[in-house]
């Protein structure tokens, strides 16, 4: 896959889910990868307040080529939903040309729209890898394949540095699985667009 993303002018990303799914950690990793490794500007704001365990929580990341003057996400380009609550609350705010990524087993999509929509079995993949709490890392891997926010290498490196000691390898596997899934989805869309759905 292409690892050199096109120049990102200014992208707003919202990651939502339950408290405890590692939403804030995912936001931190994404922002750190963009700023510390890819040398862009990034900010992170988070809301978890009283919902810390179980309710909707979110991480808001802005990645930009230039100085960021206002750190809150207003109209996100990309929304990642790992819970129904998060979807219900934030999906409406997305830009019309934006991208919506949901965990296909946890979020039911209400109506069709023109948004680019990806359904990812993130929690299921994380369970296959060994721990369902790594669904956030699977999502990051997926994001690295389908978006040009950060380079895959930067994100992978930051994941390995940010997760608890001893879990680096598992998280790395989860990340790569997410990335492979994203790459496979893109390839499938490309093939289908070219009219080659099957092998014959």
């Amino acid at each position, binding site marked *: 896959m292409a690892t050199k993303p096109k120049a990102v002018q200014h992208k707003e990303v919202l990651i939502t889910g339950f408290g405890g799914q590692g939403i804030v950690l995912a936001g931190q990793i994404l922002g750190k990868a963009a700023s510390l490794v890819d040398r862009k500007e990034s900010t992170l704001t988070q809301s978890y307040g009283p919902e810390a365990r179980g309710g909707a929580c979110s991480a808001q990341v802005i990645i930009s080529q230039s100085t960021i003057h206002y750190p809150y996400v207003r109209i996100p380009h990309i929304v990642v939903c790992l819970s129904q609550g998060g979807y219900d609350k934030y999906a409406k705010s997305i830009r019309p040309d934006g991208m919506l990524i949901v965990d296909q087993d946890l979020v039911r999509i209400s109506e069709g729209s023109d948004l680019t929509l990806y359904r990812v079995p993130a929690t299921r993949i994380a369970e296959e890898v060994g721990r369902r709490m790594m669904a956030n890392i699977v999502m990051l891997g997926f994001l690295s394949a389908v978006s040009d926010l950060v380079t895959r290498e930067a994100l992978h490196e930051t994941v390995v540095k940010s997760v608890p000691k001893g879990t680096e390898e598992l998280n790395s596997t989860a990340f790569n699985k997410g990335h*492979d899934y994203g*790459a*496979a*989805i893109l390839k*499938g869309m490309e093939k289908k667009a070219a009219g080659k*759905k*099957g*092998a*014959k």
Partner: protein
Amino acid sequence: MDKPKIILFICNWGPHAAFQALQDKDADIPAEVRMIRIPCTGRMSKSLLFKSFEMGADGVALVGCEPGSCRYGSGTETAERNVEDMRGILHLLGLGGDRLRLAMFLPDESDALLQFLQDFRDVIDTIGKSPVTPHPRDLSALSHMETARVVASHDVYACQDCGKCSSACPVTLSGKTFSPRAMANAIIGGDLDSPSVVEDVWSCLTCGLCTDRCPSVVNFPDFIREMRHVLKGGGVEGHQSHGGFFQSLMRTMTSPDLSINHWDWLPEDIKTDEKSSILYFGGCAPYFDTFFRHHLGVNTSDILSDSLRLMNFFDIFPAVQPGERCCGHDLLWSGDEENFLRLARLNAKAFEEMGIEEIVTSCPECFRTLSHDYPRAGIPLNVKVTHVYDLLEKEISKGAVGFEESDHKITFQDPCRLSRLEGRPELPRKLLQRLRPRGFKEMQDRGISALCCGNCAWTGCDSYTKALQNKRLRQAKVTGSDLLVTACPKCQIHLKCAMQDPFRGNEIQMEIMDLTGLMAKTIKWE
């Protein structure tokens, strides 16, 4: 340069009289022609025709009677079929189908016969000498020293004579007087050439079920393989099916100067890339299909094209080797280690020259041979050998790939080399679980305990192996399935052959398809 060698097989009934007339007239019969008188062209089996080329003939002419005048009625038609099939084989081998010719003459057509022989000599002169270099084998006395070494190296002494093997062995259970432990003990006792030992060594299917059950884990398949080598070295051969054609074919492939056309039949929708560092090693399916074209109508080449299609589906465009040779599995398992080594060396050199880093194969025998038997025989390939199922499983598990529903109820025939000797019955099943058939039901004997398809390495086909195949097909029928999925071209050939049993009819008839075929038909991007 040597003169070309042309063999003329001529029917005793009609054209031989014409040939004699030529001799009587002292006509100018080309000096290259050596005449062999035969009872009927229909009796020249494919293996006999091919054997001439293996032994260094540059051209073979089969001369018989006009179709209506055959003494036995159907001889000429049989000869036509055999010659057509063998010309196909000669083409694949790169020898050229023109080296084999069929002609018919009446007894009084001696001038026409002479003209034919002179033309044929000119044709062979133009094509040139055959690149096949015969390798006659030095025979020696049966070696007891060698036997002792084989027995010791596989620790056959550890046999406790408990009988677990014979209670599991599919050959024994098919009713044959055959016992792995009795054979082992007879050989330990120095009895090498008694008819029962010889028969047993060549009847074993080397399926490995006995090793799986043996409390001392005596590696019976390996033991048999080496005993066959010892026996064959002493001139004690077993029964080879199809007149030994396939062994003959593989020995012919040990000639280094052949320019084989292994892939020129490949459908055009398949993309390969000669610069790729991944090689797809297809195996002998094109030869099988040509040989059995008129008999079973087998289509095992589909396994090759479907594997390539599946790889293409994932944007993998492997190289294929135009001059691909046999991996040597069947020579190794029918006691001809020298020629196996010749093939292995040629293959290893070819892989190295192509700069191959990974070999992908869909044949369980090629997989086993390239990954295990080459290194064991001292010919390490510095490449990764991957079964196509592993590659597909890896690609499919990345996601976004699904399968169309198919209207079959399926069951699965395990290949011995993958499920038992390699110990990986789960691998094809992972893929089977992903498919969406109307139903999937396993047979009574399955996975590591599966029954063999009935033959191995083209040896020992008899009524007992037929009984075993019958039993296997009945097991498949009992599952209520309508499609038998296989994972090895030979399983397909052998089971299709068994289905032709006229006394069983529908009782054992079933559609057969390779797993790669079923996948290629239903795979899709989600």
